[in-house]
């Protein structure tokens, strides 16, 4: 009786998960399929699932419609620089909160946590005016500077740095390390796994960022790839073929997936679950 029950459970669990995997993968695979179909081929309904003449022509057409290389550079620039600056400043603040006892520490930390509730989107209107005053409209820095130090990042890295032994910090202080030196040469190497998982989450979020680039950038040559692709349906006089639009989607989604899979391969199991503990 018991073993029969177990078997039933085992089938139920595995079948459900296979179904979930199909739901997760299907839209992405379907996108890849259509993006390599020639424009003449039928893409409606089930016909989308067969490819007769695989072609890369849609990607070629994409390069004619939007400045792909420029947009790609813009996306890469904001993603990489945004991630590096955020990691550095969040870790630095996390180090201060975790390893120093200074007046107001607990209150300031509670304040940082509290700021997570009201997001920057709530002040989008004046933020645009401020950016214009600072001459940052149409500058990629407008996407990097406001998020140099984020509350979530500080919160996560503080929790992690707390686990670094105090003795390690004290010992390097005795050895004559300056305060910043302790952070850079002692703490940073120890928290590498946390930095790596936070880096991958930040990179994915920045790459996928849409609202802020849409708001702060309004020139073709300054758009990130995400904004350019979102405008594909109207970029060819409303006649952009779906194959080309989905080629654009492939171009923004595949790098993120590849990055994610690489990170998964490099990291040990469960590193993402560590990233969001608490």
């Amino acid at each position, binding site marked *: 009786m018991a073993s029969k029950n177990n078997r039933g459970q085992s089938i139920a669990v595995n079948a459900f998960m296979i179904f979930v*995997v199909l739901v997760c993968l299907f839209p992405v695979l379907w996108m890849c399929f259509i993006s390599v179909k020639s424009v003449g081929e039928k893409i409606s309904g089930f016909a989308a699932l067969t490819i007769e003449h695989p072609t890369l022509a849609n990607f070629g057409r994409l390069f004619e419609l939007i400045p792909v290389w420029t947009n790609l550079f813009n996306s890469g620039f904001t993603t990489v620089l945004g991630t590096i600056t955020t990691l550095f400043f969040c870790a630095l603040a996390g180090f201060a909160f975790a390893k120093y006892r*200074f007046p107001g*520490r607990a209150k*300031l930390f509670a304040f940082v946590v509290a700021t997570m509730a*009201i997001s920057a989107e709530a002040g989008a*209107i004046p933020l645009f005016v401020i950016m214009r005053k600072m001459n940052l409209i149409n500058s990629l820095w407008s996407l990097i500077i406001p998020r140099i130090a984020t509350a979530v990042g500080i919160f996560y890295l503080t929790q992690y740095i707390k686990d670094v032994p105090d003795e390690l910090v004290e010992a390097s202080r005795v050895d004559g390390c300056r305060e910043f030196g302790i952070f850079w040469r002692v703490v940073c190497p120890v928290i590498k796994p946390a930095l790596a998982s936070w880096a991958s989450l930040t990179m994915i979020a920045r790459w996928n960022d849409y609202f802020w680039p849409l708001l702060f950038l309004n020139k073709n040559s300054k758009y990130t790839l995400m904004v350019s692709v*979102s405008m594909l349906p109207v970029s060819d006089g409303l006649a952009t073929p779906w194959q080309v639009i989905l080629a654009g989607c492939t171009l923004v989604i595949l790098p993120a997936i590849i990055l994610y899979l690489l990170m998964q391969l490099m990291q040990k199991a469960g590193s993402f679950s560590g990233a969001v503990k608490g």
Partner: protein
Amino acid sequence: MGRRKAAAPSAVKKGGVLATVWKYRAPYLFIAPFFILFLVFQLIPVIWTFVISFADWNGLRNLRWVGFHQYEVMFQDYMFREAFMNNVWYWIVAVIGVVVIALMIAVCLNSPRLRAKKVFQTVTFLPYVCASVAMGLIFMMLFDENAGLINEIIVSLGGKRRAWLGSSQYAKIPVIILFIWRIVPWFTIIIYSGLLNISKEYYEAATVDGAGVLQQFWYITIPLLKNILFFCALTVTIDIWKMFNESYTLSGPGTSNTSLFQLVYENGFKSFNLGYASALSVILILVLLVISMIQYRLRRSEEGV
């Protein structure tokens, strides 16, 4: 560390605030960037939003103070009412949908009966990696009335073709499906890490006592995950009230599936009615404030126990 803590009060006495700041200059300097950026790019804009909401302004010149006029307009505006109600609908569906689905996936991932756990873990996280805007374009085509696969499947199962994005009746459905599809993996991981913290002994004891799987789930898993599930519900709430990408890419007729934040964007940056857009933002801020107050209250009461 202890030595530094003990020294703090005397420093305050001797040289006042400046001396204290100087003494602890390293940590203050390290946390300063966050507070400066928060002030300039978050606090000032939020306060300023309240100020602009009492004005009529196109963003350049002609700023005119109009008192509560924008709010009067807003409460008469059916577009505001529709967007607000849309958001309430999105909120209810998303909280229930995300928490239930994420919990189911997390429990299965944690089940000892699941094979190739690592593969499932990796693949089920994928939707979160995909950009919502690009997925929006894909969903637009999947849900197309004539050429879309969804209708094709419904018809082949004997159902009726529906104008998903072309009718105000159904336009919210693709939006919320996209939102849930993309966000569930994130919460799956949070719940999964909560499940990992539950001691196996509980389940072993329950099995010995003859409790079935469903009973174990209901009487052990759910109560022990209560806090985490609540945290998930709150996070989904915050995310859904500032949802933009999904409803913006999959926009239906009129304001049939517009989110409140999307309405802010359209009033502010398409018709440059910054005063009105700010008044809408104020509603959004109030909603977020109420949510965070609930969260704070509950956290307090839990700490008290």
